[in-house]
């Protein structure tokens, strides 16, 4: 009999698999972010300070798709079934993949921010307080909320649908889902800025909270909303 030991964590191996399976997504996200940082970073003016934090969530969503690819592959190939037989709950499987998505996002944020700051300080321009404020108040929180949204909705979608490949699959469409929250937020900010004097933080802050709450609610309810058979290979 097994001793009552702590449940094994699969995060490390899931991150490694996400890097292998989703390397093209990670590479694409990094290339977009780095090119963007280089071009705007070398350009004088407030462009980098204002645009980089706003676009960071979009790049991060693209980069984090490897985690969703792991989930999709594991469902089709019976790995989720194997893990369920060993007592892993669906919520635990979801959280494991979500955390792997966050790790990929951290890689993207770290690399692109380092490149951007390197360029700004290397060219003697530095960054303004607006950059720091936007990054902390919107860029970073919305990055993780959007990645969480894209990965979690993608896992639900994958579980509820028949296996499909290519761009028409949940993995192919999840980036579009993931960039919806920051995109809608920015449109809303633009609209409200034009019609009212509402400060940016009063729109962006609640938007981040709403997206994060949706992700938490989906995770909390996964055992109830998704019967275990949804995680089994349909083939």
């Amino acid at each position, binding site marked *: 009999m097994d001793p009552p030991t702590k449940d094994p964590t699969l995060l490390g191996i899931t991150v490694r698999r996400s890097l*292998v399976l989703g390397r093209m997504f990670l590479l694409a996200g990094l290339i977009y972010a780095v090119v963007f940082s280089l071009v705007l970073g070398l350009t004088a003016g407030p462009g980098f300070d204002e645009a980089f934090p706003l676009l960071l969530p979009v790049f991060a969503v693209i980069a984090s798709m490897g985690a969703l690819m792991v989930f999709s592959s594991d469902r089709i*190939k019976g790995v989720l079934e194997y893990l369920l037989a060993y007592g892993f709950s669906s919520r635990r499987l979801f959280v494991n993949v979500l955390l792997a998505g966050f790790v990929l996002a951290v890689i993207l944020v770290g690399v692109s921010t380092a490149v951007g700051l390197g360029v700004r300080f290397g060219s003697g321009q530095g960054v303004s307080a607006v950059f720091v404020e936007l990054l902390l108040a919107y860029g970073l929180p919305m990055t993780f909320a959007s990645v969480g949204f894209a990965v979690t909705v993608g896992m639900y979608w994958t579980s509820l649908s028949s296996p499909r490949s290519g761009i028409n699959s949940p993995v192919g469409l999840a980036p579009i889902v993931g960039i919806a929250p920051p995109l809608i937020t920015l449109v809303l900010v633009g609209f409200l800025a034009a019609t009212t004097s509402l400060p940016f933080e009063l729109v962006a802050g609640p938007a981040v909270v709403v997206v994060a709450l949706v992700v938490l609610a989906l995770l909390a309810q996964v055992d109830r909303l998704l019967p275990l058979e949804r995680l089994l290979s349909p083939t």
Partner: protein
Amino acid sequence: MADDPRASRAAPDPGSIEGGISCRSVSSGYLGKAVLKGISFDIDRPAIYVVLGPNGAGKTTLFRTLAGILRPYSGEVWVGGERIGLRSARNRLHYLSHMDGIPDGLRVRETLDFYARVERASPADVDRVLDLLEIRPIADRFLTALSAGQKKRLSVARTFLREREIYLLDEPTTNLDPKAAREIRELILGLSQNKIVLYSSHNLFEAREIGQYVLAIKSGQLGVFDRLENLRTARYVVGVRVLEASAALADWPREGDYFLRELAGPEAVPALLRDLESRDVKIREVREMNNPLEELFT
């Protein structure tokens, strides 16, 4: 346990596995649609139980229900005397699904490390299994470089990482070439010395070679649960192939080159041979024609 595996477990066999598997009126399926319909059986004797049935009969559903992945709509499943779903019950069994269950993006050794982590096996167990399944030469290959047979071998390898009392093996030799399938069967036969092994297969000859009991499922219900040898005697047909035509066989039904005769069992073959020889029939070959398990698929 008596020869009838459904006999009462009031007086347990000294060689039995405590608790074993007990299904009580289990109905189970997918998204509210029952595939298994009120299945009941008790198993506590270490042996290989071959689960047979046509496609869609409910074999995989039975395995998934016993493994605790599908929750029964009604009835109860007990493993090792505990209700399935409890960690202690899960720890007593190993489940090998008909899907390979091999995680993408890893090398062979990393895959075994993954399984070992899930099953709380040690690195030494991984090394032992690499040798046991003869997959050490491919240990550093990525899965994309493996053949279907090599993948199946890797999938089956996890069965041997940790010793369990009960093994649920859903089509463990699919995609394996005959030699590899035979090797896997021999390993599984070794397992069954003191374990309960439920083994599903579409290969009737394999089922006959490896099984001691048969559970036949048809339309979600348990059709037959008996010792394999009892099924063998149910309908035993031999085919006689002759060197030259004989009037003695004129009224026998034929199947190709074989003249058919139904006998009570293998023990009746010598008498048949003596009878044919006495009638001067020149026999070239006598062989069993029907695998009685075929009937379970119809």
